[in-house]
């Protein structure tokens, strides 16, 4: 294995594109090093992207925020600006792992690990965030939801890396929330999860909703139909029940050591309902 510290995005892209063997990008390393330890991967080249200028920065952009691919959870959590307009995204990312893992883990890494249970991904999909990708053919922006391809798989081409994630601007009367279910209070992988982003009109009725569910299918799913049920409502109990059922209806999870199909399905509905209530309250709505 070779280890390369890239000092520009181009250098990273060139090295990854030129390598004939297996490659891994190293940002926080909290997934890659676990895979190395377990012998799950034996890369020929690891490219550390943390020394690329700007890649550890959070910048205000067009009313939103551009978050560098090597920004850690601890750094994002300390950023009051992002926390103010995208509290759900920040709480999702901060749920990953321990304080120690937060010191290193990155959202881009969480996304690129390709886990259907990745905590930050449902929140990012609900937020309609985009990833900026640098590759041999130049730069492109891609909706977060289009990146996961299945467990452990992502839609990036050889030589491509994510350099930042863009969180769009927020109007007043909008907010988001993320909830996951884990057996303990910390340190587990989500058994089911839900990210909900809501925009309210002047009367407190929901005018836009994006809902994404995690750990209930091979990739994080955007629950469009379920989200649409919320539009025009103030989250009355009847709507919430229909919403939860609609979320459950689109779940296609697996039975494994972390949960059963039945449990994941029911819990996804429960969490979506609860997350919607939190997002609604944060957006200033009152039922």
């Amino acid at each position, binding site marked *: 294995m070779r280890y390369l510290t890239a000092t520009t995005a181009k250098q990273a892209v060139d090295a990854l594109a030129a390598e004939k063997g297996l490659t891994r990008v*190293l940002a926080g390393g909290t997934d890659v090093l676990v895979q190395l*330890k377990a012998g799950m991967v034996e890369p020929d080249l690891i490219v550390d992207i943390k020394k690329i200028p700007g890649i550890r920065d959070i910048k205000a952009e067009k009313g939103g925020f551009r978050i560098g691919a090597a920004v850690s959870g*601890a750094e994002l959590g300390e950023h009051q600006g992002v926390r103010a307009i995208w509290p759900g995204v920040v709480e999702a990312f901060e749920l990953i*792992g321990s304080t120690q893992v937060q*010191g290193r883990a990155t959202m881009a890494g969480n996304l690129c690990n390709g886990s259907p249970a990745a905590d930050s991904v449902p929140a990012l999909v609900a937020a309609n965030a985009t990833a900026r990708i640098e590759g041999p053919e130049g730069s492109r922006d891609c909706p977060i939801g289009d990146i996961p391809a299945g467990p452990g798989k992502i839609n990036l081409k050889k030589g491509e890396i994510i350099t930042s994630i863009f969180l769009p601007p927020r109007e007043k009367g909008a907010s988001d929330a993320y909830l996951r279910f884990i057996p303990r209070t910390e340190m587990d992988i989500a058994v089911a999860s839900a990210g909900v982003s809501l925009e309210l009109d002047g009367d407190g009725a929901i005018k836009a909703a994006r809902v994404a569910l995690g750990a209930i299918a091979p990739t994080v799913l955007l629950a469009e139909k379920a989200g649409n049920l919320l539009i025009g409502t103030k989250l009355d109990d009847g709507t919430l029940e229909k919403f939860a059922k609609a979320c459950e209806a689109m779940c296609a999870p697996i039975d494994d050591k972390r949960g059963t199909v039945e449990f994941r399905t029911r819990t996804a509905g429960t969490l979506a309902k609860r997350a919607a209530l939190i997002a609604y309250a944060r957006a200033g709505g009152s039922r």
Partner: protein
Amino acid sequence: MKSIPVSTTINGDPHEFLCAPDETLLDVLRNRLGLTGAKEGCGTGDCGACSVTIDGRLVCSCLVLGAEAEGAEITTIEGMADGDQLHPLQRHFIDEAALQCGICTPGILVAAKSLLEKNPDPSDEEIRYWLAGNLCRCTGYDKIIRAVQAAAAEMRGA
């Protein structure tokens, strides 16, 4: 695999070492530098026994490559006491019987110190969540929380 030369600072002292590209910082500390205070309980970031700080951030040294230490400031449990003067956390861990076997203790002390630097007056719940990545199998955490509170109070001058 060709070894990589690394220059770093550990507990304020300059260190240079060679390591393999896939060698973790924990292995470097323990096997190359003789700093065996950080422990490997899992090697996967689940137990916290290998906690150190890098440039002021609390991390699991098992999830960091040795090569990433280039130019960094690292602190380990060995750097916590000032000569023979124990850090208040260290003293209170002994006084409050916050350790039994002691294998998790270095990691917990490093993590707790990092917490008190950020939050000098944490609630029990804040301590418990901050330390959730530090497994202790002996104490049930009760006396650990009390020891951290006692040290925090002393450090605040309370």
